[in-house]
């Protein structure tokens, strides 16, 4: 019970950052909504990219580990394609990160 309360509080913790949104209104130049849109877009871009990338890499590594567990002597032959697969999956996350950089630079 206590664990669930702590989990819920931890999930609500990012809302404590909402006072930071109030400062954005003071800056001139772009409109408030534009800056909000850019900032949210940057954050959500990398967040969702990391979510999908994490799941994808988790699947890849879990298959590789299962293969190694079945046949420990093939560990080296499994490790190299696993690393290549991880790098290719990670490249999709990097595309999201680049978009996040571009959006964050426009704020």
């Amino acid at each position, binding site marked *: 019970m206590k664990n669930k309360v702590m989990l819920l509080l931890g999930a609500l913790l990012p809302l404590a950052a909402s006072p930071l949104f109030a400062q954005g209104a003071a800056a001139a130049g772009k409109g408030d909504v534009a800056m909000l849109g850019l900032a949210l877009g940057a954050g959500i871009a990398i967040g969702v990219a990391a979510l999908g990338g994490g799941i994808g890499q988790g699947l890849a590594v879990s298959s590789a580990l299962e293969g190694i567990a079945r046949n420990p002597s093939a560990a080296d032959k499994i490790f190299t394609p696993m690393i290549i697969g991880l790098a290719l999956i990670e*490249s999709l996350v990097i595309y999201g990160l680049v978009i996040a950089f571009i959006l964050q630079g426009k704020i």
Partner: protein
Amino acid sequence: MEHGITWGELLLEPLQHWLAGLGVDPEPATDALIVTAVLIVLAYFGGRKFRQQALVPPDGRVGFSFVMETVVAKMLAFFDGIIHSGARPVFLLLGTFALFILFNNLLGLVPGFNPPTDQFNVTVVLALMTFFTAHFLGIREHGWAYVKKFMGPVWWLAPLMFPIELISHLVRPLSLAMRLFGNMTGDHKVVAVFTLLLPLGLPVPFMGLGVFVSCLQAFVFVLLSSVYFQDALDHPH
């Protein structure tokens, strides 16, 4: 986040003025030239023993020439495994890519240097070189029948396959460039943020990650380049 001071700014001012006069952005160009100089020195001294004689007996010690020879031989064996018709024609390009990108990436971990590969300009050039070389190889191998490879397996799928293949071929250099650029920039920024937080000791695991990512990204770049070359050279079944 300010830029900081680089060794290029401190020590190589005349070079930077000359480069800026040519219209080239001096920051990545200076670092890239430093890497080129290091690679030329390594290549010269590494291969000197092999240029002096035709047959060199192995002398059983792990010397500098031995390390260089092993690196080059292993790379050639790796590319031969991917490109079925022999990797010798493209080995100069792929080997240079591998060592150039590797040393450029690792340069970012040396304090006072920025990795040139964290500029999108640099990575786009490397990716475009791969793109043009792949298509040049394909046209040289197949002639104008190279276009048939875009058509897909059966002729009545051609109107559907051709745009898809065209877009996928055009996206390849973009994805190569963005992968390398994003990895290097993100990595550098992560180390910078953690150095701002606690300069003593905290960045060390992230620099270790940086070494790993640098080597891996150079490897993935040349792996994908050689796969694209093989795809262009491949005879359709």
